[in-house]
């Protein structure tokens, strides 16, 4: 049979029993729709994580002080005050690092006019914005000179703008942090939630020296809470970690065999774990949805088997007037394929619609990618061929004389 005549025949055969065709197709529609929707949900989750990673900054190492002990009782990590600004300064000499950002933070009460707000104030250096890949929405960042001179300037996050200023332009205004006046010189871009769910926009950045000397009385002058450093590239991460360890152990005069009084964590690794788990979720959701596609495929095989039995006589007639086995095979295979492709088409539309609904109702990030559509379509078509092959083969192998005799 010529290739262009066969689809028309298949179309007519499917049209002959519309209810049955529709119900069979429903299995495919649900299967493909579920796959498209689940992949969209998974992809959405993955992109949320990826976005969070990008906003966190990449190639980051977090150096925090070791644990302190109080009467033999170990306290949590970061409680000791062993890292200093001098340590951070020394680190800037390391060739494996591109940026070093020491941080000293504490909670503080803010006030502007009649409004006030409680937030975390970070004492940082200009490098901090670099390592966090954080841009300003408006205004200017502070300079290293501001750090050295302990000027009272502040960069504020979006949440602070909203809480203290409302619709007013905060640039150039003076806010009070622990009753000390600070001039707002810049507004930070919106960052959203961090991977652990903190609101990253609820923050005030001030020069680190200002924070240490003027804002928060410091028990051990010059110490910092942690140092965020950025390696020169992904490939330099391990070298950077080794360099920092060596440098700090030297500076802290730690003898061989003595435990380090600081810890270094690879933030990218943490983020990658999150990305991997999101990826795993995508695969798992897709796999679950595939089961319904499989069930739909079995439905198609079932119906095609019934169809072959019902149309045995037709097959006999076709064979008598010259249909070869491959003509019959092609005819039934095409019917199954058509069922799947049409079902796949409607299912894809349903999946996209479902994704749109989910993103609207559940306020989730849902992303329908063209590759997920292509994948489910391919899956639907191969389901058609796979499950259509057995019935089609059964039809093709019928003996003409027996098929013709069939009532």
């Amino acid at each position, binding site marked *: *049979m*010529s290739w*262009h*005549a066969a689809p028309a025949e298949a179309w*007519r*055969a499917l049209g*002959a029993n519309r209810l049955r065709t529709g119900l069979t197709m429903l299995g495919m529609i649900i299967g493909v729709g579920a796959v498209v929707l689940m992949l969209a949900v998974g992809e959405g989750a993955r992109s949320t994580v990826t976005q969070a990673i990008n906003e966190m900054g990449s190639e980051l190492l977090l150096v925090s002080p070791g644990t302190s002990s109080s009467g033999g009782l170990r306290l949590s990590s970061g409680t000791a005050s062993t890292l200093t600004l001098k340590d951070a300064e020394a680190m800037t000499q390391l060739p494996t690092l591109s940026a070093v950002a020491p941080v000293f933070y504490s909670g503080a009460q803010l006030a502007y006019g009649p409004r006030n707000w409680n937030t975390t104030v970070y004492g940082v250096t200009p490098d901090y914005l670099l390592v966090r890949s954080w841009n300003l929405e408006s205004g200017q960042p502070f300079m290293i000179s501001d750090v050295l001179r302990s000027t009272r300037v502040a960069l504020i996050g979006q949440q602070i703008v909203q809480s203290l200023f409302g619709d007013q332009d905060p640039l150039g205004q003076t806010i009070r942090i622990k009753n000390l006046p600070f001039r707002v010189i810049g507004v930070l871009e919106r960052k959203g939630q961090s991977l652990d769910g903190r609101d990253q926009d609820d923050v005030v950045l001030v020069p680190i020296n200002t924070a240490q000397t003027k804002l928060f009385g410091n028990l051990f002058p010059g110490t910092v809470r942690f140092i965020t450093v950025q390696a020169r590239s992904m490939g330099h991460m391990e070298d950077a970690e080794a360099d920092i360890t060596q440098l700090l152990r030297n500076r802290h005069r730690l003898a061989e065999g003595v435990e380090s009084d600081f810890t270094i964590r690879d933030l990218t690794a943490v983020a990658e774990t999150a990305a991997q788990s999101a990826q795993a979720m995508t695969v798992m959701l897709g796999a679950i949805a595939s089961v319904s596609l499989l069930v739909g495929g079995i439905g198609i095989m079932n119906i095609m088997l019934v169809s072959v039995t019902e149309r045995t*006589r*037709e097959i*006999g*007639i*076709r*064979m*008598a*007037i*010259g*249909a*070869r*086995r*491959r*003509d019959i095979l092609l005819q039934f295979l095409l019917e199954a394929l058509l069922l799947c492709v049409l079902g796949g088409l409607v299912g894809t539309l349903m999946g996209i619609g479902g994704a749109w609904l989910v993103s609207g109702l559940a306020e989730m990030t849902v992303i329908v990618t063209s590759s997920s559509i292509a994948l489910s379509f391919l899956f639907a078509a191969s389901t058609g061929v796979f499950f259509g092959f057995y019935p089609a083969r059964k039809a093709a192998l019928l*003996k*003409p*004389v027996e098929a*013709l005799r069939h009532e």
Partner: protein
Amino acid sequence: MSSLRIPLSPSASFPLAGKRDESSPLIQVAGLCKHYPLVGGGTTPVLHDIHLAVAPGEFVALMGPSGSGKSTFMNILGCLDVPNAGEYQLAGQSVAQMDHNELAVLRNRQMGFVFQGFNLLQRSSIAENVALPLLYAGIGKAERRQRAHELLEQVGLVHRAEARPNQLSGGQQQRVAIARALANRPPLILADEPTGNLDTQTSGEIMALFNRLNVEQGITLLLVTHEPDIARYARRLVRFKDGRIVHDGEVNV
């Protein structure tokens, strides 16, 4: 013309229909046996040692009581069934050595079937039914349509080309089936009780059509029938009884 060639193009007319000498038959059957296996072992014989030769252009009626093996014989001649033993040559080609694909091509090009129950595809239009053998012969759409039109003209049903089979009377349906059988211009038509479901007058019309095809186009006709009136249209009668040929000669009914 010493060797017999099967035309590659179905639209080329069969060069030998009706014009061949008696010495090279269209159908040559020798020592043909057929038996069916029985449930629980053993076999039941249907055809014993059949010898038959049919020359091009002959009009042969096959008669015999039910179970005499005439339908099985027709199925073997039509390449729908295979014999257990014996030789069958169609147009000089040995059918026994052919695989199912070659048999399908043979059914498509060398013969047309007309059945008692018409066997038209109910979902397809009359024109599509007639053009179906052309579809399997790989002929293009435009030519299929034109040829179907010619064929329907030949059987006087052009005006019903777009109708469905169940909208036609029995006689009309059988004429459609005959048009379909003629689609690839085969040299041979096998008809299995073609008038079995028709009244006397319609039967007469169908037989007249067969007769015309035989006389005017030289198409070889083999016809299975129960009715002596129908057999009388033929010019040779072969009688079956208990799986053997008991009469082969003039029509004496």
